[in-house]
């Protein structure tokens, strides 16, 4: 059996639903008389309607209503973090990031370095005889990492405290 096209499927569904006008209905019936593929597909689609029409409403448990009524007052109080607080925190973070960026670009951290010398760690001398390397970090790199982490934090804050509550309220407003 050949598979009929999408548009024929749509026409047959409209025919089954009684959504066609008299002229279109007559054309479909004509095609059905002449085309076995159309007839088979109509039967397949009709079967869907037959089995789906037998779908009945499912019933919840007998004490459903009592359970709901019993839980009404146990609903957890929503922690509404006001949007203005979120905006304030976001501004503080962005300000800190801005200041740090200005300082980095003006070269304030260019000559700042810190190092971790593993040989100075008491335990290492006790257990390891070989000399261990020392790690040097530039202040500029550390501040850049802090800036990136703050930007990540600002993004999360923007999403959780401003965008999400805003869209949730908008959705509730639509109901």
């Amino acid at each position, binding site marked *: 059996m050949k598979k009929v096209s999408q548009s024929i499927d*749509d026409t047959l569904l409209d025919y089954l*639903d009684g959504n066609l006008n008299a002229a279109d209905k007559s054309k479909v019936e004509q095609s059905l008389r002449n085309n076995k593929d159309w007839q088979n597909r109509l039967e397949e689609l009709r079967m869907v309607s037959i089995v789906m029409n037998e*779908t009945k*409403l499912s019933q919840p448990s007998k004490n459903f209503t009592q359970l709901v*009524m019993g839980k009404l007052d146990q*609903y957890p109080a929503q922690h509404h973090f006001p949007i203005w607080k979120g905006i304030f925190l976001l501004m503080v973070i962005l300000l800190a990031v801005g200041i740090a960026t200005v300082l980095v670009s003006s070269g304030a951290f260019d000559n700042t370095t810190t190092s971790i010398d593993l040989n100075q760690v008491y335990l290492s001398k006790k257990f390891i005889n070989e000399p261990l390397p020392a790690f040097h970090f530039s202040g500029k790199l550390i501040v850049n990492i802090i800036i990136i982490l703050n930007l990540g934090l600002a993004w999360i804050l923007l999403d959780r405290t401003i965008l999400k509550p805003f869209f949730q309220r908008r959705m509730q407003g639509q109901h």
Partner: protein
Amino acid sequence: MHGVRPSGVMTKDPEHSRIERILAGEQHLYADMVDKYKSYAYTIAQKILQNRPEAEEASQDAFIKAYHHLKGFNFQSKFSTWLYRIVFNTAISYKRKNRQQFQSIENTVIEYQGEAEGMLEKNDKKRFLHLALAKLNDADRAALTLFYLDEFSLEEIAEITGMQANTAKVRIHRARQRLADELKNILNQEALTL
């Protein structure tokens, strides 16, 4: 017949006065609303979750959410449509949460077969339908169920499932076509095993 039922001119929903009284403090009246809408709410949740205990929990949760957001209900729409939208969204979020505890389609079928043990012959049609429906996505399954419950206009189905009315119509058509294909495949496989 499943034609496009017009949503009609919006008349005042008889529930509106009851909602006003609930908001004024008559909490006990909410029990009547739960009684009235629980079957549809539970059916929607069950079609999405395909698991009875979860559907029960999700639909209860939805009623509780609806109660606590009743102040936000805009009296321009039908209460039932607003409620079922909450049920739909709650069930979808339950489904997302439970995705971590992955449940395959096969497992769902096994659960169903266990439940219907001894009644398979009588319920063959129901079983095939269940298998075929399991292949559809959650939103399509819920939309299709609402469509065949014959209680909702396409506009209402669209509102409940968060789609545009035209999109809802197309998706219901596609879901019916897919269901027809799946049923045909299942019946062919059954015929081969005989």
